[in-house]
């Protein structure tokens, strides 16, 4: 079968990609255009078929890739399909840079493709039930299919511009789906926020593309990899002048800005920082993470698919994809790792106290993305990407589980925020066993229970963070002093490890808190039972007091119900993968399965062998000792959460909150980062906008528009007199016009065009009806011939420094004559100028073109 596959789809013309990409696009088009008319059943069928077929095609592609990689061991095998040639641009020294619409599947994009289509299919299936009663059912699936298409373009695109198309596409779909329930202003605002934060990152990506096109002269992966060494050569050309900008000179009043020696960075650092900005935007890292928690305003399947499993990992994918550029700059690598570690810790602190089930998961996603950044930042690309892989399963499962819980809560609580409030939940494991068990599985994975997928991937990242160190490319070694090169400090590894362990501990704590408060204890949503039973119960109890939610009417109702099968089946599958996917990459090499690391090895082989990732001496033997950090984090976090929320029934948590009320509030309000941004960045933008608006109002509207409108009004008043609707006036004007044209024909027009080559002047008279010409070409003041002839061209030769006057006379059919004089002069060339740069100069002439009839 694989042979047939390879024959049908050869690796260099792998047209199966068209199916993988085309089906979701087709689904998006059909659902988007005809969805409303087709009805929900047809929409569901179309959406599921599109992603299902795409998934099957992706599986087949993966099989083909596997066969190929077995055939060519240790080689970076790729399946390539060039759809069409897109455009050609030019780089440095106007060397052409071809940009094709070309897609390629290698181990990295293959795994990502499987995750997107596979998890995507499960979430589509889930959403068919979750969104069943929504009015925008067709619209939802059109967007969701379009998202899968864009994401696949992002992953499979073989060059940066094509990746950027997908990058923008997923950003658009994210915006559309966050604001899916756009009738609520805050949802629309959340969509806008996501779009704008992403736009800042996109700016970085665009800059990176320009820099890469300039320095590498290529934009596709292979071309960039081949020319990446241009980015760090010790030559001056690979230095980017940061100050003074572009290597200029500040003079005059600005001369105080001129530094003693220019501050330069390598091109690799510039490209890396620009790419990093793009990645922080898409992958929600400090400082651009603020959009992701708000993005939870969208439907829960969207949060699961886009804002947890796939789109937000695009930044890590890009870092892995461009790893050969990142490793060239230790500064950028350190930045990536530090940003990742900081985000992991920072987001975890916020997640500790949040009460909204989706908000906790959102900050947990930000935190986990930080872990991935930490991994790729220390050169552990395989580990970082493996965490992308496992995170896709357990976070999708967690979000879908949360969606299932919200779905059940919605039975009685119709307020969107309250139905997601942890304080309203509790005890749900009795009512929703499947959701409970799958949620438990995914929680076990994210908190790193030894043996689950999250444990393996997180442990690997922490281990590599401790032992790895970024170094300069060998090509730069000799010139480090001259460049004042940045060196990552030796204490960085242990610090990153410590921060990672702290974040992992918090992760264990807040995830267990979430789990316990949702599924254990008493159910707080409403009184379970029929109204009469509840009334009997109420008699014996006090009124239900809860944290500041007294305004909520406590209603009675039946017990929360388990969700229907289209929602639980994806949960079970995802939970199974969350728990067991770790065995695909056993960090301890216990199992004999083909480890994922070997799969990805060829992709990162060149990077790993380039000598830029150094390993601390003796670090290889620290794997087991360092695993203690991860296991310890799990044990501490889990047991503290158990003690606080189960053993002591939340009393210690309340006590701590009461002891530090200001800190608790600060954390509850997300460290007020949104408010900080509002006061600084947004205020700056707003004041700029206000200035621009004032300029528009007073200068543009007030002066320019008034002046031009006054001109138009005056002209209109004048012309209105002519357009008076009286036929005779029009007729008179016509007569005037016709008379003018007639007069033009009656009078002869002597016009001529002069061209010169090396002193030979050719004078061509303009044509006209019945024209005869008479020339005085020798400049003696008398016509050369007595009669007029149809000779329209004369030739005159002039030596250097000479001048002459040529006279042309024209006689037309009416016998009128007219003449003009054409002065020719050929100045001597000035000694400093090159000969020939000054041609014969023509004396002032009315018109150069004598064309008329």
């Amino acid at each position, binding site marked *: 079968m694989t042979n047939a596959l390879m024959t049908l789809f050869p690796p260099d013309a792998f047209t199966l990609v068209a199916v993988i990409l085309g089906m979701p696009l087709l689904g998006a088009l059909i659902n988007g255009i005809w969805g409303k008319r087709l009805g929900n059943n047809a929409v569901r069928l179309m959406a599921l078929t599109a992603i299902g077929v795409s998934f099957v095609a992706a599986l087949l592609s993966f099989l083909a890739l596997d066969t190929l990689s077995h055939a060519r061991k240790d080689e970076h095998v790729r399946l390539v399909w060039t759809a069409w040639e897109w455009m050609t641009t030019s780089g440095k020294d106007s060397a052409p840079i071809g940009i094709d619409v070309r897609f390629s599947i290698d181990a990295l994009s293959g795994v990502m493709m499987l995750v997107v289509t596979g998890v995507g299919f499960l979430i589509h299936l889930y959403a068919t039930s979750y969104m069943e009663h929504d009015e925008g059912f067709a619209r939802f699936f059109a967007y969701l299919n379009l998202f899968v298409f864009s994401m696949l373009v992002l992953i499979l695109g073989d060059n940066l511009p094509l990746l950027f198309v997908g990058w923008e596409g997923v950003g658009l779909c994210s915006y559309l789906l966050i604001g899916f329930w756009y009738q609520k202003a805050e949802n629309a605002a959340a969509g806008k926020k996501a779009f704008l934060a992403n736009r800042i990152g996109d700016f970085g990506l665009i800059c990176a593309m320009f820099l890469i096109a300039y320095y590498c002269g290529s934009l596709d992966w292979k071309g960039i990899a081949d020319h990446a060494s241009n980015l760090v050569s010790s030559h001056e050309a690979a230095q980017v002048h940061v100050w003074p900008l572009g290597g200029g000179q500040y003079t005059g009043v600005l001369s105080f800005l001129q530094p003693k020696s220019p501050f330069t960075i390598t091109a690799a650092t510039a490209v890396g920082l620009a790419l990093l900005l793009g990645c922080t935007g898409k992958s929600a890292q400090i400082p651009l993470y603020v959009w992701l928690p708000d993005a939870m305003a969208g439907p829960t399947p969207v949060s699961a698919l886009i804002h947890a499993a796939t789109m937000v990992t695009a930044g890590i994918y890009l870092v892995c994809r461009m790893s050969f550029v990142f490793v060239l700059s230790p500064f950028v690598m350190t930045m990536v790792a530090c940003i990742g570690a900081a985000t992991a810790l920072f987001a975890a602190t916020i997640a500790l106290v949040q009460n909204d089930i989706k908000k906790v998961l959102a900050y947990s996603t930000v935190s986990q993305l930080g872990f991935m950044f930490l991994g790729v930042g220390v050169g552990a690309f395989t580990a970082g990407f493996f965490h992308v892989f496992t995170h896709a399963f357990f976070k999708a499962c967690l979000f879908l589980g949360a969606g299932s819980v919200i779905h059940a809560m919605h039975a009685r609580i119709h307020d969107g925020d309250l139905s997601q409030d942890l304080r309203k939940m509790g005890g749900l494991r009795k009512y929703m066993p499947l959701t409970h068990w799958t949620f438990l599985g995914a929680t076990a994975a994210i908190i790193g229970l030894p043996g689950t997928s999250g444990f393996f991937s997180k442990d690997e990242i922490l281990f590599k963070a401790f032992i790895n160190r970024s170094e300069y490319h060998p090509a730069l070694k000799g010139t480090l002093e001259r460049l004042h090169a940045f060196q990552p400090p030796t204490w960085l590894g242990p610090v990153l490890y410590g921060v990672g362990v702290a974040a992992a501990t918090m992760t264990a704590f807040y995830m267990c808190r979430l789990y316990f408060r949702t599924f254990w204890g008493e159910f707080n949503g409403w009184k379970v039972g029929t109204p009469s039973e509840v009334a009997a119960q109420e008699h014996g109890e006090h009124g239900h007091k809860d944290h500041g939610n007294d305004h909520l009417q406590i209603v009675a109702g039946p017990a929360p119900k388990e969700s229907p099968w289209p929602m639980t089946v994806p949960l079970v599958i995802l939970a199974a993968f969350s728990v067991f996917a770790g065995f695909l990459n056993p960090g301890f090499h216990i199992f004999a399965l083909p480890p994922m690391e070997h799969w990805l090895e060829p992709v990162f082989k060149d990077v790993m062998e380039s000598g830029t990732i150094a390993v601390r001496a003796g670090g290889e033997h620290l794997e087991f000792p360092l695993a203690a950090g991860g296991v310890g984090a799990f044990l501490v976090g889990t047991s503290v959460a158990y003690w606080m929320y189960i053993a002591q029934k939340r009393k210690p948590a309340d006590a701590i909150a009461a002891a530090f009320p200001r800190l608790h509030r600060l954390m509850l309000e997300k460290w007020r980062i949104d408010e900080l941004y509002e006061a600084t960045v947004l205020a700056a933008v707003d004041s700029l906008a206000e200035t621009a608006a004032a300029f528009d109002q007073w200068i543009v509207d007030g002066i320019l528009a008034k002046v031009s409108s006054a001109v138009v009004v005056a002209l209109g008043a004048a012309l209105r007199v002519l357009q008076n*609707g009286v*036929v*005779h006036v029009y*007729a008179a004007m016509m*007569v005037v016009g016709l008379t003018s044209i007639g007069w033009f024909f009656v009078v002869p027009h002597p016009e001529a065009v002069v061209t010169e080559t090396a002193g030979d002047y050719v004078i061509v008279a303009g044509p006209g009806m019945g024209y005869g010409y008479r020339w005085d070409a020798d400049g003696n003041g008398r016509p050369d011939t007595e009669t007029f002839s149809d000779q329209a061209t004369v030739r005159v030769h002039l030596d250097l420094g000479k001048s002459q006057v040529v006279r042309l006379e024209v006689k037309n059919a009416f016998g009128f004559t007219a003449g003009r004089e054409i002065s020719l002069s050929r100045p001597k060339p000035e000694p400093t100028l090159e000969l020939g740069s000054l041609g014969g100069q023509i004396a002032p002439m009315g018109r150069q073109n004598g064309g008329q009839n």
Partner: protein
Amino acid sequence: MVPFEHYILLSAVLFTVGSVGFLVRRNVLMTLLSIEVMLNAVNLALVAFNRARPENHTGQMFAFFLIAAEAAEVAVGLAIVLSLYRLKRTVRSDEADLLKN
């Protein structure tokens, strides 16, 4: 034989009479008549030029075409005049000012 210049002179006089009539008369019927006069002046000039240069018959053929065009123009023009009369009970062009303002 009448000299060529006389034809041209007559044609010019007719054309002038027609154009002055076209410009000064307010009665649409008279305007149409003036246009006819001008067209016939042109016809006369065409035929006269043809006679002065008898190598081919371009001028005469052109005159025939013009006669056909005139017939069509009169048919349409008179129809417009009739419509105007039905609408405004007048055939004076300065009173047909529905487009004004």
